[in-house]
């Protein structure tokens, strides 16, 4: 007979998963070294710092601009209106009293102006000074009625003035101005301050970029190194956490959770392929041999029928194992939280005790029960029933005749515990961590019926409920404890929720003795 061809071998599945992992890790550690020259700009932290600097710079410039406009602009407008008013009043003097009146007014004004901040000059049509506190007509002022801001030589000192010329009907020219040296100085101070601020900002921006980059790098380097190691196939690596609860810490925690999960799934795949190789092949081989033998050797129809019936029974066993395996896989995939709701375990426990009591009775076992009147949890009733039923199945199966099996529930502040304890052979200390693996059978249990999947299923269910399965020594015997958290939290929380929860979150890792 031809050897059956298996299209997919377990090794293929594993290498497929490895390849997938590598892609994921490469995507996480996206730092592919391309052109080193542009590496500086491709750094997220540098880009972040530059963008930050740009926004900061633009807002500073806007602020400085508005300060400049509101101070210098107002001063300049005030000067202009003072000159205009002065001009209008002098023209009025000229109209009412002619040249003598104007010269008198000018003289008064020059006299009352000790610091020489106001400038007056009256010249005849040839440009000769008639009266004024300025030596000669400035070259820059060429037209009437326009404001000029020009440097002047005011007798001995140099300065800047704002000036306006007026033409008189007799051909003379009047120049009125104000010294604006203070304004110019203020402008210079403002400009210098702005340049200094800009320089300081650029300096600080660069320093900030470097600091941010080093903070980013320190936090991300570990994650990058870990994911690279994982991508190379070393699944034991974990990201180091600083336990500060900040965003990086939460990311590290999340990545570690993800890696734990991937490791568990990989383990699951490995275990299942081993199991398929052994625990499923064995009964299939038995059934096959039985049928083949019966086909060639059965002496009577009854013998043939008996062989077929036994083979059918064996195949039913295979189906049971398959279903249990699929159910564990389904629960571990975590897809079954849709049926979660509030469940009172009291009636669940009462019903289960009643269900198993006759069974215990046939072996003279006393079922000892105790639990509070209300045991409220959030979960899937069917699954919790199944988990407790599996433990009771085991306990009644392994307890010696005429002993006591104890079913109890207990509440404390953080957890709800469901105990199932027997006085059977128990599980040796060194085996307890392995007892929740698929197909684990204790040495003492080799000859009892069962799939070897019961505890694995219970552990998977506990884990789905954010709890765990603990296996204790009952002196003698086994005490299996399902520990469920009292405040069940939604797994998919926002960062904000996670920040709040990191402090008191319980480990979701299943496994005894932890």
């Amino acid at each position, binding site marked *: 007979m031809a050897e059956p061809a298996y299209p997919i071998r377990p090794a293929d599945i594993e290498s497929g998963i490895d390849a997938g992992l590598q892609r994921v890790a490469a995507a996480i550690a996206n730092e592919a070294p391309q052109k080193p020259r542009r590496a500086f700009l491709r750094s997220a932290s540098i880009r972040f710092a530059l963008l930050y600097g740009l926004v900061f710079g633009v807002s500073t410039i806007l602020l400085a601009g508005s300060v400049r406009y509101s101070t210098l602009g107002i001063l300049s407008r005030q000067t202009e209106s003072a000159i205009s008013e002065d001009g209008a009043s002098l023209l009025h003097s000229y109209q009412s009293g002619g040249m003598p009146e104007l010269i008198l007014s000018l003289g008064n004004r020059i006299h009352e102006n000790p610091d020489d901040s106001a400038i007056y000059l009256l010249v005849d049509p040839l440009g000769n000074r008639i009266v004024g506190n300025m030596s000669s007509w400035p070259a820059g002022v060429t037209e009437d009625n326009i404001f000029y801001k020009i440097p002047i030589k005011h007798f001995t000192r140099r300065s800047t003035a704002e000036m306006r010329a007026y033409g008189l009907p007799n051909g003379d020219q009047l120049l009125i101005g104000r010294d604006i040296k203070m304004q110019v100085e203020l402008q210079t101070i403002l400009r210098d301050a702005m340049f200094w601020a800009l320089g300081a900002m650029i300096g600080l921006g660069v320093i900030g970029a470097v600091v941010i980059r080093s903070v980013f790098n320190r936090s991300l380097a570990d994650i990058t190194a870990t994911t690279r190691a994982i991508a190379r196939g070393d699944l034991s690596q974990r990201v180091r956490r600083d336990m500060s609860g900040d965003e990086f810490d939460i990311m590290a925690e999340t990545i570690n959770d993800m890696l734990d999960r991937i490791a568990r799934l990989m383990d699951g795949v490995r275990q299942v392929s081993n199991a398929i190789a052994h625990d499923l092949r064995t009964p299939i081989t038995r059934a096959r041999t039985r049928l083949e033998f019966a086909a060639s050797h059965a002496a009577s129809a009854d013998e043939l029928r008996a062989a077929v019936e036994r083979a059918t029974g064996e195949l039913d066993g295979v189906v049971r194992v398959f279903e249990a395996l699929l159910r564990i896989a389904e629960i571990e995939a975590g897809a079954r939280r849709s049926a979660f709701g509030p469940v009172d375990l009291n009636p669940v426990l009462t019903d289960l005790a009643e269900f198993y009591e006759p069974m215990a009775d046939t072996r003279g076992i006393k079922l000892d029960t105790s639990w509070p009147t209300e045991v409220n949890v959030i979960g899937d009733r069917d699954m919790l*029933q*199944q988990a407790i039923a599996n433990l009771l199945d085991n306990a009644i199966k392994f307890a010696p005749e005429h002993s006591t099996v104890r079913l109890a529930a207990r509440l404390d502040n953080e957890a709800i515990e469901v105990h199932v304890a027997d006085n059977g052979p128990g599980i040796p200390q060194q085996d307890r961590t392995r007892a929740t693996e698929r197909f684990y059978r204790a040495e003492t249990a080799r000859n009892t019926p069962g799939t070897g999947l019961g505890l694995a299923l219970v552990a998977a269910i506990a884990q789905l409920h954010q709890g765990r399965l603990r296996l204790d020594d009952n002196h003698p015997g086994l005490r299996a404890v399902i520990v469920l958290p009292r405040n069940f939290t939604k797994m998919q929380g926002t960062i904000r929720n996670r920040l709040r929860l990191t402090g008191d979150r319980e480990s979701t890792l299943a496994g005894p003795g932890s």
Partner: protein
Amino acid sequence: MRILLVEDDKDVAGFVVKGLREAGHTVEHADNGRDGLFLAASENFDAIILDRMLPGGIDGLRLLETLRAQDNATPVLFLSALTQVDDRVKGLKAGGDDYLTKPFAFAELLTRVEALARRGKGEGPSTRLVVGDLEMDLLSRGVKRAGQKIDLQPREFRLLEFLMRHAGQVVTRTMLLEGVWDYHFDPQTNVIDVHVSRLRQKIDKPFPTPLLHTVRNAGYMLRVEEP
């Protein structure tokens, strides 16, 4: 009873058709969704056995949804290799009345289909169940056999009620688990057998003829032994 089987696997279909005919039913068979839908919509059946995954563009779910959209209330039993709880829920939500996963025991399929077809007939709510000389009064919750009162625990009463409602039919352990205890898992031990044997102690032991029979490789049946 007239039963429609929609199943594409030739071997499974042949075996089911043969088994149902041997049990005295008329069976029509379609091996794809299109033909299945045509038959189901154009003729009258007491029950339909429907495979989830079918060739021909119309799978079991679509077929059933189309049928229910036409106000066709023929009871439907899904037969499927999809065992996940969510698949089961999807099947029942689409309007399925029962769900059996492959591989299955033929006895279980037969029992479930017959139960469905009978439910489809809509027997009225009865207050009294009788099998041979065994009587159950559902109102006073009293059980008598040959005029003799029998004391039953509440759960034993429900177990007997379930068996009496399915009198003459094979009742599998899974059906008892679901129907009496509302448990949807497979106990590793023979708990159900112990419950049945306790019940047997009360209703059969003191009397000359047994009513509750064990059917090998299938389950139990409550019936009057034919002379």
